[in-house]
């Protein structure tokens, strides 16, 4: 069993950092106003606490939030990023501390240039702090499962009753191509008219070649409609054709 993570790009990480920077400055403006009130009693004490306070807030912000929010700061939340152990395990506190301590080098000479270059050159898109702490930053975009909604499965499908055709199509169609055809249908409105025609012409041509269809099944059907019919028989099999695998209980099309 393997699973993959979508590594965050240096650009999105920089955007998250900018949000965090703005957050720290905003928070500090509030905190410093409160500290300034100490000036009533002692200006010296207020100045001392200001100096230490800014250092603690600016350094501690990342450490505190990444630990409390399991690898996220406010900026990372907005940009859907998360820091995690490079093995996919939760962060240890020491990792959070070390990756934030190394900002001192990553931020050099300006705007995280060292860290950015390291992330661009590295295989895991890690800045030096991530390398030292054995962490990665992943992109966690909210996932919308589309299903077959939007396909506008037609009431009449000339392929639906042709079990041998459907079986042949499932046998010879690689999953990636089946998914590409389905995605083409789902996103059909996003294409320029010419591009849309060309795309479905190519797809329909391919399916016609591999399916060896009787001519009457294609009569009066546009390329796009034909691809829709093919996708329907690929993804939605008739009850008579499904088999229960016994693991998830879900029906599956026969795989040759």
């Amino acid at each position: 069993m393997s699973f993959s993570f979508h590594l965050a790009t240096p650009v999105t990480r920089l955007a998250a950092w900018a949000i965090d920077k703005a957050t720290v400055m905003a928070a500090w403006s509030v905190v410093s106003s409160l500290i300034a009130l100490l000036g009533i009693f002692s200006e010296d004490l207020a100045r001392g606490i200001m100096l230490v306070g800014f250092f603690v807030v600016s350094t501690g912000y990342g450490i505190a939030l990444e630990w409390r929010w399991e690898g996220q700061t406010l900026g990372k939340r907005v940009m859907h990023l998360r820091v995690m152990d490079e093995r996919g395990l939760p962060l240890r506190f020491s990792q959070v501390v070390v990756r934030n301590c190394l900002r001192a080098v990553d931020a050099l000479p300006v705007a995280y240039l060292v860290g950015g270059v390291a992330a661009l050159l590295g295989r895991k898109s890690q800045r030096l702090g991530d390398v030292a702490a054995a962490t990665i930053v992943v992109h966690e975009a909210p996932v919308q499962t589309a299903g077959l909604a939007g396909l506008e499965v037609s009431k009449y499908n000339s392929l639906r009753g042709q079990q041998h055709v459907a079986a042949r199509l499932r046998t010879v169609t690689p999953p990636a191509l089946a998914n590409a055809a389905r995605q083409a249908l789902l996103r059909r409105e996003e294409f320029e008219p010419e591009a849309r025609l060309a795309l479905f012409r190519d797809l329909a041509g391919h399916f016609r070649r591999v399916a060896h269809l009787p001519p009457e099944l294609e009569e009066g059907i546009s390329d796009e409609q034909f691809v829709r019919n093919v996708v329907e028989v690929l993804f939605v099999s008739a009850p008579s054709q499904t088999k229960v695998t016994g693991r998830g209980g879900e029906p599956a099309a026969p795989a040759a």
Partner: protein
Amino acid sequence: MIINLEKFAAAEEPHWRRMEEILQKRQRDPWAVLTLEQARELDYLYRRVAADLARVTASAAEPELRQRLERLVARAYAEIHGTRGAGTVRFHPWHWLTTVLPQTFRRQWRAAALTVIVTILGMIFGGFAVAVDPEAKHAIMPFPHLLGDPSERVAEEEAAMSDRLQGHKAGFAGQLMTHNTKVTLFALALGMTWGVGTIILLFYNGVILGAVAVDYMLAGETTFLFGWLLPHGVIEIPAIFVGAQAGLVLARAVVSRADGRALGVRLRAVVDDVATLAGAAALMLVWAGFVESYLSQYHEPAIPYWAKILFGCLEGALLVCYLGLAGRKRTASGGRI
């Protein structure tokens, strides 16, 4: 293989949702202890969702669904195999201070020794440079007040009738703490340059220290020098050693490939020690900042030099005892750590 996506998703959705609920609950309170039933349910759902992911990966299912299941499986994997829950002891400051920190320092004693050696070499270089060529001070000293004649400065300090730091002590302490902590963390971070940057920074600090020491000694102001530097220096300088020690521990993990372990594995093995040493250095510098601001800058007749030197020696002795003896325990092999 091409699966009936609609039916598959409809059948499995309740399990995926339940898994999401459990993981969100765990995220809200990672320290909560699972009951046996909850653990079993999590394990069952993890296996089930992993099986679903295997099916989806091998099928023509949409990438969005695969991503969703991948994320679920990844989060569950982290929850089950991670060490943040029952396997992790919560942070106990007192235990960390009395046991973890000194043990970590001793465990990484080679790196600590190297920081001391490099600093001493820098001191010898700086001292020799100033002894041979007094004009070298202008190239070495980073602060203008160190460029003048030491005897003049001592006379000026001892003749001062008022508290020159009056109304500035807290600000000065804050400045010292933050500046020195930044420098120390920088020394730590430079460990990623295979330790070269850390060693250069240590050597440079040693050069300044040696140059100042020899400058004052040659001017016959040794007592003033010790009275001025010892109270805060016996903590501040070791704090920089500790920060640099952490940098060298990082460096060793980066460069040592002899054991055949991957870089990530080597770094993961030392990351706890590096964080502990970074925390130790920061704490020491807070103390040193207070002492420098509130004690070191006051000289005779305000505070006798012997008292300041004695205070510094006591601090140093306590630090040595703490780092050398605190948290010692007998290991299984009969040794002590």
